[in-house]
């Protein structure tokens, strides 16, 4: 096996050998490696296939910008993870990784055929091809595209890992632990700011930490040595917290940032166990220093995507940090000085290399050093093509013309096994723009820079466009002093020698003799978009960068265009003949690098996903086999199946029992609002449609509450407990919103009213007993209470004691039966329920759930707000004009009831429906029409509630129908998939219209 690890470094622990599997084969690396550096040490460049053309692709970078080396980690159904960047994944014993987007394997990939038919799949191919015939989309095109789309595989079972959230507050947050970040953090912490420094790598120091060129020095030391000292010093500062392996994912307004801390991703399986995998930090910082650095740009030329072609600076890091060379015969292709650092490093380690430089000439100290070492430099030359299928083996260069627009002279073919490219540097302005900052364009080196720094955030170092060491240190110190309003003198006398210069020859799309249409000049490696695609988009009329991006998919892969966006912009600017700075950029959206769902949800999984509210009777329902229904956050018994009954049978039995003898419902979930104050009656007058002032103490009244637009909002029964004391009930789902609405009016519109509102929903439990025998059961429970209709009529309220515990008993009915609601303090709810059940035994007291409740009330034509109404129904639409007071001066929504729209006669109105076949049960939500022959069919309305009534022995339904009020007796049709159902419009009340049962 080849070994490309050619020297020892302090970052690789050669005493700790680590074995790992890649594509099923076992390899070895060392502690300190990333998966990418370990693969390169084993001579592996080819790590995947490109998305569209399935071209072989190799490792390009050494960081978060990596477009190609993304792999699937692990194979377990619950733990496998797709799209992990090999350049960021720290190696651990037992790591299993595999390449993605290739079948049957990375070396021979069937999809590679796409490469040869590529002229047939240009930009916008999907949009253009899969348009017609329309009917093909769903059945043919979409399944095919889905089959070939997507990179990795999602886990198919729940994630067993533990994730955590943490909230923190700091005076200063410094993002990035490179040279400028370390200086900023030190200055802040030494001046008594509580400071947090985060860096996404395992160790601090950025790219300076492995710098070893002795022509770049600070205070007469190698810059890396100087920085190590600084790091030692800041670790001693007591009010500085340092978090490594922590990356900022999002920068929101008001300096609220999200950071992901990796805690166990670098550990072997057995050490990961029972530990928190990742922690999401929610950071509020008074001030934020952005020191996120910059990333190197690739160059755009024909076949610039072969395995073995990397960013020049990455070759340098693999060599000086990991001790790994990316090849033995390397060519560096550059338009600026930074590739010379790589070249000199390679040379020192005995790696043969030559430089191809776009510039006509250059003469910095660094270049002189390279020349003096005898490194061959081709100035004013351009790479025009590369060769080699699974790895680069040679390339062609040509001389550039004077203006740089074409090539001249003869091709020179050079052999190599690795090509490093450097197109200059792109400042990482993501954080700045995410925070709302704008960008400026600097023409001289074609970079976008943070425009203004606010009093809350500042960018320093190379993310601010300061690329050479002298500039970085001087400017950072000055800016931080000003930003924090301090006068730190630590770096006053620092002596910096930097031999690099900023001179650069920028050409976005490099010239070539071959027509563009026949080249493959890649811009976005992961999504396979080329310079040709960008130009095609422009030819076809796309102008906005946001449109070109979406049409060509440039920058839309998992790397979000970290390497590609600038080139796309540059080529658009050149082609359209405009200045790049005027184009603007696409939006930099969070997260900076992908986040796991686990990190985002933290501990809020499983039973902690949402709050579950249970009544105090809940355990009884569970013991008695109730099926539950979610109503808001509440768990409500839905029905109580007996002896293997299905829902229909259980509901039929429960409904019949409630009307024939007695039924009991847990009504604890209904919203309850305690209303007190001298203006309580006036307040109710204003919020309900009907009049309240004359309601006697001890009486109950049903009320309908509207929105200001006149539409029904909520309903419920309110009881007058004493002169200035009412208890309002609301729907279960509406309780919180009703309270908020009432508080809003009270605080903002009617602050003069003396009214106090308290939610008491959870304070009382309610058992509702109904049916002809309910009075007998109540009598057993409350023997001293006079239950006669004279003393305790329908819609009234009494207080009594059950074994010394106070109970509020309301005689109110939602079923049409004689009915009592017993309210007791919640802690006694369970006992109350059991006593009711015991007392009701001889009367076949049957517990019933929400489904039976809905059926019973539908028989009586009582509406359910939210089921029979949908926010567009007025009281009149519901045929409830009787509840709207004509006399009251005002109430919420009154004026809206006679707007031109609300008085229309052809509004949808609530009606009853009876099916011609009494056994036929309608589907809720089904459309209602009068004629199925004329097309388009005129939709008149829809079914809102539908049941089979065991008490009437027929199907009943409520519906909203256009002009329904005038249609009684009319025939309508419910068209279903396989038949038309004939129905007749009826009254909304199906049972006991005279209300005889209430006082039976």
């Amino acid at each position, binding site marked *: 096996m080849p070994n490309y690890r050619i020297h020892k470094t302090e970052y690789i622990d050669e005493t700790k050998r680590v074995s790992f599997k890649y594509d099923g084969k076992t390899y070895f690396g060392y502690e300190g490696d990333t998966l990418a550096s370990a693969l390169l040490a084993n001579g592996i460049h080819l790590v995947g296939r490109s998305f569209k053309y399935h071209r072989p692709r190799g490792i390009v970078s050494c960081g978060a910008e990596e477009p190609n080396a993304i792999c699937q980690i692990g194979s377990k159904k619950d733990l496998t993870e797709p799209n992990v960047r090999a350049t960021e994944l720290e190696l651990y014993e037992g790591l299993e990784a595999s390449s993605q987007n290739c079948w049957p394997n990375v070396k021979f990939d069937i999809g590679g055929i796409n490469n040869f038919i590529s002229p047939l799949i240009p930009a916008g191919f999907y949009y253009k091809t899969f348009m017609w015939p329309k009917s093909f989309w769903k059945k043919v095109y979409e399944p095919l595209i889905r089959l070939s789309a997507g990179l990795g595989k999602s886990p198919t079972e729940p994630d067993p890992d533990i994730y955590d959230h943490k909230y923190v507050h700091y005076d200063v947050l410094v993002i990035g632990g490179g040279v400028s970040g370390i200086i900023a953090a030190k200055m802040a912490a030494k001046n008594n700011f509580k400071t947090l420094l985060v860096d996404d790598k395992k160790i601090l120091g950025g790219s300076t930490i492995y710098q070893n060129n002795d022509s770049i020095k600070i205070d007469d030391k190698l810059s890396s040595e100087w920085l190590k000292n600084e790091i030692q010093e800041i670790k001693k500062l007591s009010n500085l917290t340092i978090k490594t392996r922590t990356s900022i994912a999002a920068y929101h307004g*008001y300096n609220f940032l999200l950071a992901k801390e990796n805690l166990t991703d670098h550990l072997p399986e057995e050490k990961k166990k029972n530990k928190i995998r990742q922690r999401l930090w929610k950071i509020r910082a008074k001030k934020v220093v952005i020191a996120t650095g910059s990333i190197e740009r690739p160059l755009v030329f024909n076949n610039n995507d072969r395995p073995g072609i990397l960013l020049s600076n990455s070759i340098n890091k693999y060599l000086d940090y990991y001790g790994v060379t990316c090849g033995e015969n390397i060519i560096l292709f550059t338009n600026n000085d930074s590739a010379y650092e790589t070249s000199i490093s390679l040379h020192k380690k005995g790696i043969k290399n030559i430089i191809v430089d776009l510039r006509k000439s250059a003469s910095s100290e660094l270049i002189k050093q390279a020349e003096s070492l005898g490194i061959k430099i081709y100035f004013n030359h351009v790479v025009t093509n590369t060769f080699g299928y699974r790895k680069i083996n040679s390339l062609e260069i040509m001389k550039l013309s004077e203006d740089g627009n074409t090539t001249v002279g003869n091709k020179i073919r050079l052999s190599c096994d690795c090509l490093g490219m450097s197109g200059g540097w792109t400042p990482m302005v993501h954080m700045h723009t995410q925070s709302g900052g704008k960008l400026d364009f600097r023409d001289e080196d074609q970079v976008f820079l943070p425009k203004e720094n606010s009093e809350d955030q500042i960018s320093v170092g190379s993310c601010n466009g300061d690329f050479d060491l002298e500039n970085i240190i001087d400017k950072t110190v000055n800016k931080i002093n000003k930003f924090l309003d301090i006068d730190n003198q630590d770096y006053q006398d620092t002596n910096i020698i930097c031999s690099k210069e900023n001179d650069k020859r920028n050409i976005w799309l490099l010239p070539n003799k071959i027509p563009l249409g026949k080249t493959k000049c890649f811009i976005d490696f992961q999504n396979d978009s080329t310079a040709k695609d960008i130009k095609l988009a422009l030819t076809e009329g796309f102008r906005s960068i946001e449109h070109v991006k979406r049409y060509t998919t440039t920058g839309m892969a998992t790397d979000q265009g970290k390497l590609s966006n600038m080139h796309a912009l540059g080529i658009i600017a050149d082609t359209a003949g405009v200045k790049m700075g005027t184009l603007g950029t696409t939006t930099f959206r969070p997260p900076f690098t992908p986040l796991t769902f686990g990190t985002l949800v933290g501990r809020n999984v499983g039973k902690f996903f949402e709050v579950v509210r249970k009544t105090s009777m809940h355990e009884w329902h569970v013991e008695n086999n109730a099926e539950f229904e979610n109503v808001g956050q509440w768990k409500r018994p839905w029905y109580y199946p007996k002896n293997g009954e299905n829902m229909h049978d259980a509901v039929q039995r429960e409904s019949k029992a409630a009307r024939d003898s007695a039924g009991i419902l847990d009504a604890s979930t209904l919203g309850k609002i305690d209303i007190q104050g001298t203006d309580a009656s006036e307040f109710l007058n204003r919020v309900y449609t009907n009049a309240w002032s004359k309601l006697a103490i001890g009486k109950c009244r049903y009320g309908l509450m509207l929105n200001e637009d006149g539409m029904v909002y909520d309903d419920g029964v309110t009881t007058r407990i004493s002169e200035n004391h009412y208890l309002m009930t609301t729907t279960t789902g509406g309780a919180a919103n009703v309270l908020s609405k009432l508080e809003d009016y009270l605080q*903002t519109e009617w602050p003069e009213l003396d009214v106090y509102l308290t939610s008491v929903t959870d304070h009382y439990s309610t058992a509702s007993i109904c049916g002809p025998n309910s009075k007998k059961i109540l009598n057993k429970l409350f023997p001293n209470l006079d239950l006669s209709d004279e003393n305790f009529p329908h819609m009234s309220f009494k207080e009594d004691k059950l074994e010394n515990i106070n109970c509020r008993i309301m005689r109110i009915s939602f079923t049409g039966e004689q009915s009592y609601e017993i309210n007791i303090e919640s802690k006694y709810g369970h006992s109350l329920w059991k006593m009711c059940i015991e007392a009701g035994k001889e009367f076949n007291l049957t517990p019933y759930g929400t489904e039976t409740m809905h059926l019973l009330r539908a028989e009586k034509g009582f509406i359910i707000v939210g089921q029979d109404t949908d926010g567009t129904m007025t009281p009149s639409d519901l045929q409830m004009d009787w509840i709207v007071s004509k006399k009251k001066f005002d109430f919420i929504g009154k004026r*809206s009831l006679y707007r031109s729209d609300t008085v229309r006669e052809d509004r949808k109105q609530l009606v009853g429906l009876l099916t011609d076949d009494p056994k036929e049960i309608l589907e809720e939500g089904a459309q209602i029409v009068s004629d199925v022959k004329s097309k388009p069919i005129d939709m008149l309305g829809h079914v809102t509630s539908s049941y089979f009534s065991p008490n009437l022995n027929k199907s009943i339904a409520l519906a909203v129908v256009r002009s329904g009020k005038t249609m009684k007796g009319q025939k309508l049709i419910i068209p279903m998939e396989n038949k038309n159902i004939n129905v007749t419009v009826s009254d909304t009340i199906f049972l006991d219209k005279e209300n005889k049962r209430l006082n039976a």
Partner: protein
Amino acid sequence: MFLINCPFCGERDQSEFSSGGEAHIVRPKQPTELSDDEWAEYLFMRKNIKGIQFERWNHVHGCRKWFNVVRDTSNDKILSVYKMGEKPPVNYK
């Protein structure tokens, strides 16, 4: 995510609050005397400003009090906070 300075509780995270739309829209005292158009003006018409906006917020997961906020919608900066019934600060228009 805003930091909102509740006039009753002090600075709290935005997640404790709910927004209640435009401020200083007074419910007409005599709705019955308004034409459909006048009522619709009160009921439906809201400003959508780029710049300084007066809006209502409710400290719903805190003291449950409603109050007013002056916010620049172009940069989300909250410029002032004041209680219900108080006049808006004169320096913002």
